[in-house]
């Protein structure tokens, strides 16, 4: 699982890069459909993250999700029983693992999706899967792109999905809760002076120094949780740095997105690094810190605790 996670994350970044005005249009979609009237009848037309107008003829009862974060959102909106298909990566909540698996992000089988006879497919942004999406559309199965890249967008996407599946009440409640939790955390973080914030480096691999920079969800998570992502100074998105550059950054905290703390601590050439000397190398559950779903506040809290140590 070591590289699996960051590759999933990387794929999400590709989504980000291709997303130009996704959020704006998403907001536009909301406006176009007016207020949050419950009981609003179908057909319902919403604009998705790709800027497409998607019309649902009736309330979706058979939903397929091809993103772990979307699966989490659906379950968080109490629509778990309407989910009929998920991917191999959809491991949360436990009930999601009981659902039919239709492949992974790299290997979607459009036929097995159709075989589930879904009335809505929730997808992330992907150029590689575009053919599959087109296939679905031609087969008369609507797909809807949801692709949040920031914390705010997560909340917006929850609202959008709630509207799409006619669970607005649950959506409102969830978002309100998330916002409150986040605000509480942000208040605590605001008390930390800028110079005292932990200098953090995210390690995605031990064979190659892959990390995350500016403009990534993970980087925003770190900043929000009171850390200072050093790699943000170097570049955007996901990139590889030379070991020397890594040494020069000399992070105080190293966040590993998969279990490799012992290995990092044991690296003979790294013994002079501050984070190694102080032992501040932490394995964090990649799913909670890098999955733009309803558990992001838990991820923030986890990071906050790590930085506060």
């Amino acid at each position: 699982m070591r590289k699996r996670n960051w590759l999933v994350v990387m794929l999400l970044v590709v989504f980000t890069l291709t997303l130009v005005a996704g959020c704006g249009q998403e907001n536009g979609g909301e406006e176009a459909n007016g207020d949050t009237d419950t009981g609003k009848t179908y057909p319902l037309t919403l604009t998705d993250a790709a800027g497409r107008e998607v019309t649902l003829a009736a309330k979706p009862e058979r939903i397929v999700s091809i993103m772990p974060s979307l699966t989490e959102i659906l379950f968080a909106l109490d629509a778990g029983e309407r989910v009929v298909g998920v991917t191999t990566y959809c491991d949360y909540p436990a009930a999601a693992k009981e659902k039919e698996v239709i492949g992974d992000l790299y290997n979607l089988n459009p036929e097995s999706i159709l075989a589930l006879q879904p009335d809505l497919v929730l997808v992330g942004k992907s150029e590689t899967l575009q053919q599959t999406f087109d296939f679905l559309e031609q087969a008369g199965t609507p797909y809807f792109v949801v692709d949040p890249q920031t914390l705010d967008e997560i909340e917006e996407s929850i609202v959008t999905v709630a509207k799409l599946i006619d669970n607005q009440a649950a959506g409102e409640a969830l978002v309100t809760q998330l916002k409150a939790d986040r605000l509480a955390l942000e208040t605590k973080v605001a008390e930390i002076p800028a110079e005292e914030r932990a200098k953090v480096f995210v390690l995605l691999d031990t064979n190659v120094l892959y990390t995350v920079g500016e403009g990534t969800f993970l980087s925003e998570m770190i900043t929000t949780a009171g850390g200072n992502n050093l790699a943000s100074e170097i570049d955007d998105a996901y990139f590889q740095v030379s070991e020397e550059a890594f040494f020069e950054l000399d992070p105080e905290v190293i966040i590993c997105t998969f279990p490799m703390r012992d290995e990092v601590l044991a690296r003979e050439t790294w013994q002079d690094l501050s984070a190694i000397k102080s032992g501040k190398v932490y394995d964090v559950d990649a799913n909670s810190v890098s999955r733009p779903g309803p558990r992001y506040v838990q991820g923030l809290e986890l990071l906050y605790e790590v930085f506060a140590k």
Partner: protein
Amino acid sequence: MKTRNKYLLYTLLLSALVVSVILATAVGAVAIPPRETFQIIISRLTGLWQSSDIPATTQAIIWNLRLPRVLLGLLVGASLALAGVSFQGLLRNPLADPFTIGVSSGAAVGATIAMLLQQTYQISFTQMLPIFAFAGAFLAMFFVYNLARIGGQVPVVTLLLAGVVVSSFLSAVISLLMVFAGEDMQGIFFWLSGGLLMRSWSEIWFVLPYLLIGSIILFTYARDLNVLLMGEEAALTLGVNVERTKRVLLVTASLITAAAVSVSGMIGFVGLIIPHAVRIVTGPDHRVLLPASALVGATFLIWADVVARTVMIPKEIPVGIITAFVGAPFFIYLLRKKKSEIRL
């Protein structure tokens, strides 16, 4: 080559190598003044020149990152060049290189398996990777050798054919493993491209014995390698125990290759180009060609790695890409310029 010229050449190449090590250690993603570089190394080696005024990070960069990396480049470059010379002589084929008989494919399979185990069992495995790669290389060599053996002999042609067949087969195995690996392919890809990044002193101690013992054996057999080039039957009548010599050279060159590949992945072209380039200057006498190629190969890989780690600061590109970019045009130049030398 005249003895005087020979020693002049060795002196020249050795000085070039030493200067390269120093310069290459002074260059990197982080700017460190050469004086400090020198100071750190001297201080660490002899304790004479105190370097406590230099920041610990700078010291760590020089001593823990650059120096081992430069030295590893030196060892791997020397290993690949030596193995290249040996295979070209042994197989009497100027197109041969350390990877011809499948040793590297074996290493790649070993490394891929190590990465897969890592992924599947979520265990920290980085230290085991060279050992797996080495085991793979060794098994591949063993397999090729036995496949090529007819009676008590290992004809060069069957050896080449067996090498090609086993290489192709192992490539297929790698592809299959990559399917299992799914998105972990990235790591395998990086490994296959060859590189010296994220290495440490432990890799140096891993390669060094193979290179040292291997080169002593190769130098011991240098004249036999010359005589072998007269043809195997002629070599027999000139007093060379042909089959034993081939076996010793094959195993030695393969082990040197295996060790080098295990710590650096598949760095191509060094083992192919360096022997040719050196042969232009020294002639084909292996007693000169072997040590000279080792020195040139070491220097070459050090500089190729300097390019690899500085051309896109603060990022890096695999050094195998640099050697290919330099090596392929040079090889084409050789082909066009010195057809008689290459004799295709």
